[in-house]
């Protein structure tokens, strides 16, 4: 794998000057991710959302590679067309350069409104990488709840009130849904672990067929924390096992990070304003439920990785 110090000398596909918030976890990992396409040309397709609107305000664009935005729910379908065109035009000798394809969406554009389009594109086997930057709510429109929003989160559509402790119920297991598609490569990653991130995108671009990576992307205004804490909060998501870093490579499960000491989920919740109310005594049961959910999912992933044939 290429070394980070070499990569920083390479031309960037996503350039500075975009209008994402200071401290946003998304551009940091996206730049790295695109480096992993190596010497190939890249086409990026973005679903409507923070990264898309902040990187392409006409007449400017932060993309040095080709970039297409179509709508909110169809990044995967749109990219399936681009990728098919690439195959068709290569076959007919009209395109000669090598290309890789990366589509992205936020959790709203992926877990919710874009799920069908994503499922279809993955099932059809298009040679593309789809990355979900999961900031756990519709952030571009102001922190509304999505099906990725964790239990208890204070969002603008699940506000905390006399009769509400925030979002009820548990998040959807999107990564699990993608694993059930039996595509060549599925992974989860956190933005603090750049080495793991690089390796995953390198692998995702390398496999023949679809790859899906779900990246937990802390959001300063939505999660309400000090902007210098993005990496720290991401690390806490890994250390508490709230967001396990693992991969399923051609059916083989592998745990990529196991904390020496698994921290209680409170450690991840504490620095974030969206969970502040959970620390009131009457909401203790919500933290307990969250902890039980985290434990159950972690145990399941660990068990699958341990029993996966090598």
């Amino acid at each position: 794998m290429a070394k980070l110090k070499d990569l920083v000398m390479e031309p960037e596909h996503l350039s500075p000057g975009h209008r994402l918030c200071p401290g946003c976890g998304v551009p940091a990992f996206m730049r790295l991710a695109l480096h992993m396409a190596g010497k190939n040309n890249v086409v990026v397709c973005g679903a409507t959302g923070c990264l898309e609107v902040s990187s392409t305000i006409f007449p400017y664009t932060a993309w040095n590679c080709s970039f297409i935005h179509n709508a909110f729910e169809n990044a995967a379908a749109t990219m399936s067309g681009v990728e098919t065109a690439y195959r068709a035009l290569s076959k007919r000798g009209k395109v000669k350069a090598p290309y890789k394809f990366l589509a992205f969406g936020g959790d709203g554009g992926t877990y919710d409104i874009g799920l069908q389009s994503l499922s279809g594109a993955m099932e059809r086997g298009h040679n593309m990488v789809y990355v979900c930057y999961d900031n756990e709510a519709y952030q571009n429109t102001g922190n509304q709840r999505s099906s990725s929003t964790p239990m208890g989160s204070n969002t603008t559509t699940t506000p905390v009130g006399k009769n509400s402790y925030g979002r009820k119920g548990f998040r959807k297991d999107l990564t699990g849904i993608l694993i059930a598609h039996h595509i060549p490569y599925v992974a989860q990653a956190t933005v603090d672990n750049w080495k793991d991130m690089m390796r995953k995108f390198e692998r995702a671009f390398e496999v023949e067929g679809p790859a899906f990576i779900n990246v937990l992307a802390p959001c300063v205004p939505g999660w309400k924390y000090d902007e210098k804490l993005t990496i720290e909060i991401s690390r806490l998501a890994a250390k508490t096992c709230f967001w396990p870093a693992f991969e399923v490579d051609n059916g083989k499960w592998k745990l990529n990070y196991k904390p020496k000491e698994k921290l209680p989920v409170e450690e991840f919740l504490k620095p974030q304003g969206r969970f502040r109310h959970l620390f009131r005594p009457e909401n203790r049961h919500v933290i307990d439920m969250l902890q039980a959910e985290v434990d159950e999912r972690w145990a399941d992933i660990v068990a699958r990785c341990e029993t996966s044939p090598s």
Partner: protein
Amino acid sequence: MPELLALTGNDAVAYAMKQINPDVVAAYPITPQTSLMQKFADYVADGEVDTELVLVESEHSAMSATLGSQAAGARSMTATSACGLALMWEILGITSAYRLPVVMPVVNRALSGPINIQGDHSDTMGARDCGWIQIFSENAQEAYENTLQAIRIAEHPDVLTPIMVTLDGFIISHGLETVKVYDDAPVKKFLRDYQARYTLLDPSKPLTLGALDFSDYYFEHKVSQLQGMLKSPQVILDVGKEFYKTFDGDCCYGFYEAHEMKDAEMAVIVLGSTAGATRMVVDDLRSRGVAAGMIKIRSYRPFPYDEIARELANVKAVAVLDRSIAYGADGGPVHGDVRAALYGKHPVPVMSNYIYGLGGKPIDMEHIMGVFDDLKESIVKGHPKRRVGYINLKEGNTPSLVG
């Protein structure tokens, strides 16, 4: 040599697509379009085309994938009907805004609800303002020829606007007709090779497509998009003329067909397959010395306002036949356009509007004869017998019935 084949409308369009051999086609089933794509899938399976066929999971994705592939420089097509077109609606406007010359056959079918699979024009009328050119076909022959011409019109550098080629569900799509198909070589030459000016797949010129416009650019971009539509009439005529010259065809190649309009006192304006029955009624009336005429509109968007007004300059009474309802408007959508065409012209004919054929309700020559009877009466009275009539409705369902 052209060949005469027994083809349904869907087969005729699929035959055109075989000759086009697009780089990419996205397909999703919906009645009555389904057999069109099934036929095309046969061509793929038999190696008669080397198109990449993408079998998407919805029409929303069909249009999205078609947009993506056209943006990547591939000649791309899809086809649909009714609910499928409605599901595409969001992406229709994005495709036209990105100036992508996609050609899409639409097999007209009634929009739900209630769910109904038969032909009317409510689907394409609902997509009327999405920035697509809309070309209507009277029969399988026209559906075949319009599909071929649409490629050239859409891809013309002055136009770069997507096109819907419509054919009436079942009546054309499933009716078996004798269709004259032209030889592959001249068709291929007529179609030309497609070379997009901007594509996502040019390594020397990376492209950002679909940027966010604020109020400082959005309006300007929409007006710039409009230029393609405004320049399309000349291209529609030029391509039609070239097609006619190349293939010696006998379809309608302009914006509309004027049948017996020269000295007509009364006229019916119609779109699609109903033009066939209307023409026969006109011929029957003419044989009895009645000065009847018909205008069949081929290019509904862009709409030939000035030309229609000119055709109607000496007509005393006109009836517009609409195969859809425009709720809350003054009659159907075509009626509104014809009225707009006549604004400021003197003298104007007495005008009436007839809604017909919704959800596949039959319309036959007797009904159309009834419309001409009404027009006759209107001329005598100097005002329309009916402002808006409904053809062939069961008794008791509406205040004013015809036929």
